[in-house]
Structures are given as structure tokens and as C-alpha cells.
């Protein structure tokens, strides 16, 4: 549905993105991840048709965005980083205007506006002026605007930026609902969001692609050792020594000592072995009170930092 091959974009001497190539197939949700200035917005703007690439080729729904810009743009709904709408229009009249701009007739635009308002739960504010809405509602107007005229591709640039946690959860649900036979590319800073919504992640850094994979595969790629968190009621030093003696344990890190004397330890293990039962047995043998024992997955955050800050080294494999 989206295909970028060797796309670069330069503004004067500044290179925003360099040699970006990826494909997104129909129905897929892909997350663009990267620090500020990594080229996420530039990539999304190229797909959305804001400006053409300096070199390389970009196809959206089979249309080259340079040769057939209008056809390509007609297939895309875009939610910009700076969400915006005309302040003096009501939600309904604005969405009708957007429908007309996207080439719908008067009746179709009106029907589409109602549909988009339903999808984004905007019906209660249909006749309010956009300028008077709260941030959460304005964000939803932006999504509704992108949904109008049923585009096959949705480009969402940081759809949850600036929302409170409840609104973030709502927005995440909304995005997951949108995926039905739509292709979605979204960017974000918030990693759990990617883990929660995306089929695939593209990590960008300094305008180049650092990694493309599923969120779980990415975690596995940087996971060099297994980790198990153990909390138990025992003298810390003795506990650390005892657990380190279990076969397969590489090391033990003391996390914290709580007020009532309980020790919290992270046990590093050889990556292929699950040592949870062996550790539990070791604790029981010594008569310590076991409060918690669970394996800790490497978070995407760590993956991200590992990939991005390993700049000079070869990319992790």
C-alpha cells in the first residue's frame, strides 16, 4: 500500500532523511520511532503529499506521489504533528468542508462528516466551534478530518502527544478500531504505545533506518540475558549469595531494601534458560519468605536506547 525506495529529502544543505526504503502492506499498522529530529515527520509528510522527496520514489496506493500527486493524496488521510483546524468553524461544517476538499459531493460529504464524528465520538460537540474545544476533542477532530472520505492509508504524526493518560488510552483504542482494512503509519515518542498498537516498528535515527521488525522480535534482538526479579524476606547479602549459587545464574543485582527488611534482587540468567523454578526452590530450601518472583522482559525503551545510542558500533543483531 505504501512503498518508499531510496527516498532522501534535503532542505538546502540539511539532510532530513537519507536513503529510506520500506514497504507497508494493506491492513498493517506500522510505528515510526525515533528521537526528535530523526526524520519521522519528514517521512510522513512525504507520504502524505506535503512535499515530494528530493531523490527516490514513493508510491501510495500504487500512485507515484510525484507523477500523480492528486491521486496519491486522495488515498491518504493525514493527521499532522501540529493538529489544526479552522477555529471559527463548527466541527460539523469543518468536516463537511474537508469532505468537499477531498472531492466528495455535497451529500456524500455530509454523510461522511457524520460517520467520522461517530467514529471519533464527536457527536456531542458537532455544533461547537472548534476554537472552543478542549485539547482532547481537537485532537479527535484532527483524526476525524483524516478519516473523512475513507482513505485507505492513514498517516498519524504523534496522535497522542499532549493528551492526558485517559485520553491517550481512548486514542489508542480509537486507532486500533481504525485499522479495519486500513493501512496505518503512526509516529510516537511513547514506546508502550507502539508495543500496544503496532505490527511492525521502524526505528529512525539521524534520518536513516536503524531497524525494522516486530516489537517482540526487537526486544529479543537486544536481549543478551534473561532477567528475573525476586523479592524476599531475608538478609540481603545472604540472599544475593544464595541466589548466585543457583546453576545458570550469571549475576545478581541488589535493587532495593525495603523498610521491613525485605530484599529486592534482579537475577541475571543465561538467556535460553528459565530459572524461575530453580530460584524458588533455592529460596524455599533456605526458609526465606518469598514475596515475588517474575521474569522481566526487556522493554522497547531499552531496545530503542540500545539501537540509537550504539551509533558508532555496528548495528545490533
Amino acid at each position, binding site marked *: 500500500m505504501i512503498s518508499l525506495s531510496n527516498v532522501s529529502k534535503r*532542505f538546502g544543505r540539511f539532510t532530513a532523511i537519507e536513503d529510506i526504503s520500506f514497504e507497508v502492506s494493506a491492513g498493517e499498522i506500522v510505528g515510526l520511532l525515533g528521537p526528535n529530529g530523526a526524520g519521522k515527520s519528514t517521512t510522513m509528510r512525504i507520504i502524505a*503529499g506535503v512535499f515530494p522527496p528530493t531523490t527516490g520514489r514513493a508510491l501510495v496506493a500504487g500512485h507515484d506521489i510525484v507523477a500523480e500527486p*492528486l491521486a496519491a493524496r486522495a488515498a491518504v488521510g493525514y493527521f499532522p504533528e501540529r493538529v*489544526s483546524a*479552522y477555529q*471559527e468553524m463548527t466541527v460539523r461544517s469543518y468536516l463537511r468542508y*474537508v469532505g468537499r*476538499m477531498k472531492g466528495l459531493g455535497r451529500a456524500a460529504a455530509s454523510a461522511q462528516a457524520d460517520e467520522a464524528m461517530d467514529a471519533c465520538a464527536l457527536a456531542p460537540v458537532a455544533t461547537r466551534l472548534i476554537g472552543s474545544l478542549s485539547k482532547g476533542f481537537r485532537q479527535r477532530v484532527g483524526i476525524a478530518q483524516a478519516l473523512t472520505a475513507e482513505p485507505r492509508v492513514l498517516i498519524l504524526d504523534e496522535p497522542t502527544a499532549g493528551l492526558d493518560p485517559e485520553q491517550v488510552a481512548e486514542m489508542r483504542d480509537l486507532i486500533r478500531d481504525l485499522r479495519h482494512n486500513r493501512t496505518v503509519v503512526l509516529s510516537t515518542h511513547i514506546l508502550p504505545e507502539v508495543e500496544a498498537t503496532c505490527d511492525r516498528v521502524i526505528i529512525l535515527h539521524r534520518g536513516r533506518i536503524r531497524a525494522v521488525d516486530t516489537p517482540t522480535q526487537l526486544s529479543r534482538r537486544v536481549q543478551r540475558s534473561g532477567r528475573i526479579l525476586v523479592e524476599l524476606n531475608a538478609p540481603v547479602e545472604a540472599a544475593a549469595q544464595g541466589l548466585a549459587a543457583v546453576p545458570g545464574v550469571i549475576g545478581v543485582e541488589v535493587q532495593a531494601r525495603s523498610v521491613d527488611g525485605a530484599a529486592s534482587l534482579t537475577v541475571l540468567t543465561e538467556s535460553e534458560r528459565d530459572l524461575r523454578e530453580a530460584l524458588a526452590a533455592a529460596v524455599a530450601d533456605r526458609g526465606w519468605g518469598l514475596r515475588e518472583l517474575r521474569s522481566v522482559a526487556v522493554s522497547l525503551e531499552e531496545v530503542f536506547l540500545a539501537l540509537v545510542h550504539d551509533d558508532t558500533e555496528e548495528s545490533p543483531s
Partner: protein
Amino acid sequence: MSRMWIICSRELRATLGSVVAYVLLAVFLLLSGYFFYSDLTFILLISSFTPASGLWQWVFLDLRMVTMLIVPLITMRLFAEERKLGTLELLWTYPVRDFEIVGGKFIAAVVFFLFMLLPTAIPCALLYYYQPYPLGPLFAAYLGLILLGIGFIACGLLVSSLTENQVVSAMVTYGILVFFWFVTWNEEAANQAMLRVLLGLSLFDRYYDFTRGVIDTSDVTFFILFIAFFLFLTWQSLASRKWRGVP
């Protein structure tokens, strides 16, 4: 092309939905009415009553100034506001060509300007009712004023597309228009060849012919080229995002 009209109608609704439009309209009509009145009494005072010869020249030279005062305030928001809000970026992702965006906004401003001029015909009609006069010179003067105003609009549209600050947009437009006005005042300093070029470029000197009731095709052509030139630059200014990026 149909999208040009959608942009134009949205723009007109936005203009007519704001208080600014009515303040501008009121100021324009008050000033133009005052000038009509004072020019008429002045003509009656110094000459026997022959409005056709002198009155229109006075009135329309005054209207020129009022138009120059008002038009930059009409055009200042056209693109600057969209840049500030970020809605311009969205427009670029809709299946619409840049020239349709420019055209839609330009036509909306022209329609509002013509709407603003309409009531100025009332005193002219009243005068005609009491004291008929030849209409030709009046039409020539109106044609000149309309061309001049549309020229101002094209210039203001360009400036508006370059900034996201409406005050900057209006001030720079004033600067350019005043420059075009005063460019031929410094006759002593410029040599003759230079002065001829400047006179050729001066909107206001060309407008002067219209107020005397003369429609010169070269003047009309000049205004049309002037308008087309500024619209072209506006179009290029929108296209500059391709190498400048979107702020």
C-alpha cells in the same frame, strides 16, 4: 477547479463571520463618504457646478488612499492565519493544486473588496438623481479603482503567504504599496530614463489616468500583468515548501 470555489466560499464565510470584516467595512464607508462629501462641497465652493470635470478626480484620488489603508487589512490573514494554525499543511495533503489554493483565496478577497465598494455607488447615484452627469468618466474611475484594489490584493496575498504573523503581513504590504506610490516623487534625483521606467511601474501614476476618465489599454494591461505577476509569486511561495520545508 471546483476546489477553488470550495476554498473561496470557506474563505468568504470566515471573513464575513468575523468582526474584523465589519469594522473594516464601516471604516471604509465612513471615510469614503466623508471624502465624497468634502470633495463635493469643495468643488461647489471653488467652481461653478461641473462635477464631471473635477469631482471624480478628487473623490477617486481620496478613495485610493482609503483603499490602500483597508486592503492590507483584508489580505493579511489569508495565508498568515493558515500558516499560524497549521491548516496550510493540511491543505497540501488534500487533492488540490497550489494554484487552486491561491486562486480561491484571491477571488474571495476580490469579492469582499467589490462588496465593500458597492455602497460607495449610493452617493454617486443620489447626485445623478439631482444633477445628471455623463457616466463614462465615473465608470472609468471605478474600473481604475477596482484594478488598483485587486493589484493591492495580489500584493497583500503574496506577503501574507510569506509570514505567519498577520501584523507583519499588513505592515510589509503597506511598505510595498507606499513604495509604489512614492517611487516617482523623487523626480529630481532620478535621471530621465530611470524616471520613465519608474513611471511605467508606478501603480498610482497609471491610476491617475483612470480618475480623469481615460481608459488606456496599456494601463489596463499593466494592472493585469501586475496582478498576474504577484499571483505567480504567491504560487511560487507556496511551492517553496519543497526546498524550505514546513516550519
